[in-house]
């Protein structure tokens, strides 16, 4: 669309299969109770597995075990 408004920069995220969602920081996450938590890291790992001890961040609890 020449001359139209510039495309807004998209937030790029990456999913580690079986692991967290990686997203460029800083990130604010709104928790179910409405409160906000913030991470200022250059890249933030959000827990997708539900097992993290420090939600909403990943703490590698998603890892499998050795055979």
């Amino acid at each position: 669309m020449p001359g139209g408004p510039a495309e807004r920069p998209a937030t790029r995220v990456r999913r580690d299969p079986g692991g967290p969602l990686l997203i460029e920081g800083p990130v604010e996450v709104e928790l179910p109770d409405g409160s906000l938590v913030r991470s200022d890291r250059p890249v933030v790992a959000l827990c997708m597995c539900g097992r993290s001890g420090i939600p909403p961040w990943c703490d590698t609890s998603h890892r499998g075990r050795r055979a």
Partner: protein
Amino acid sequence: MRPPQPRGEISAALIGALTTTSPGEGPLPAAGAADPYGDDLQLALYLCYELHYRGVAGVSDDWEWDPRLLRLRGELEKLFLTALRADVPTGAGAAAALEELVLEPRDGRGVSHFLCGSGELWQLREYAAHRSLYQLKEADPHAWMIPRLTGRAKAALVAVEYDEFGAGRAERVHARLFADLMRDLGLDDTYGRYLDAAPASTLATVNLMSLFGLHRALRGALAGHFATVESLSPPASRRLVRAMERLDAGPAAVRFYAEHVEADAVHEQLVRHDVVGDLLRREPGLAGDVEFGIAATRRLDERFEADLLAAWQARRSSLLIPLTD
């Protein structure tokens, strides 16, 4: 850092030359057939490397690039590296070695398991004293990788290092967080303070990263080292948070490991996929060195941890000079 006490002929001659002569003057020792994992060689090598970090009090900075000192360093490195290449199992490939790093063992028997389950405060303090040799210069050796990378690997490595170095805030530099931990544990956070107390198996873990970092030819091994450190850290840090809390070690002591649970869950992803992944796409011939770097790091960590656990099981100090309170 003050010059250490000698631990044999080579380290004695080296310390003597560094502290009493100028570069180019007196005689320097030869490495001969020193035990590659022994105290004498590991201390001499540690001292050669320290000239590249912060230097040694009373020792001329010009020693860093003295050709004869570099020759001695080269001889020591050759003995160490040859032994490692012979002793460390490789062959399964870099991909398998990287995958294995993020699988949890079923029966954890390492130091972090021990400290978490039944460690006592004196053991926690000893562990921190050992680790201080690296943690007070945490992430410094990996910065040597920066000029050797390009593109995505470089951008990802620097993103991780930025986090390690406090993201622009001096009070958040990980080495500084470790100094805070040491003070919570009643330890002296002076750089190099526990060098004389650290046995060869501790020195070897630090010498390994200096060796990999100072040789561009070993950049693949350094990338493997970093992937190993970052991947093994989150679960171990989780256990150490519990140990610090259980033993009431103090808020800064808890904070150092809590920070590493969260930070290294990210760093692990970036180092494995972006740094190592991109490096190997550009230079597939480095796969063997990445695998070697991972295996050597794990082997030396296991030796270090086995020495600590053996000493503690015998109810004796794991340090060459026990801590006083």
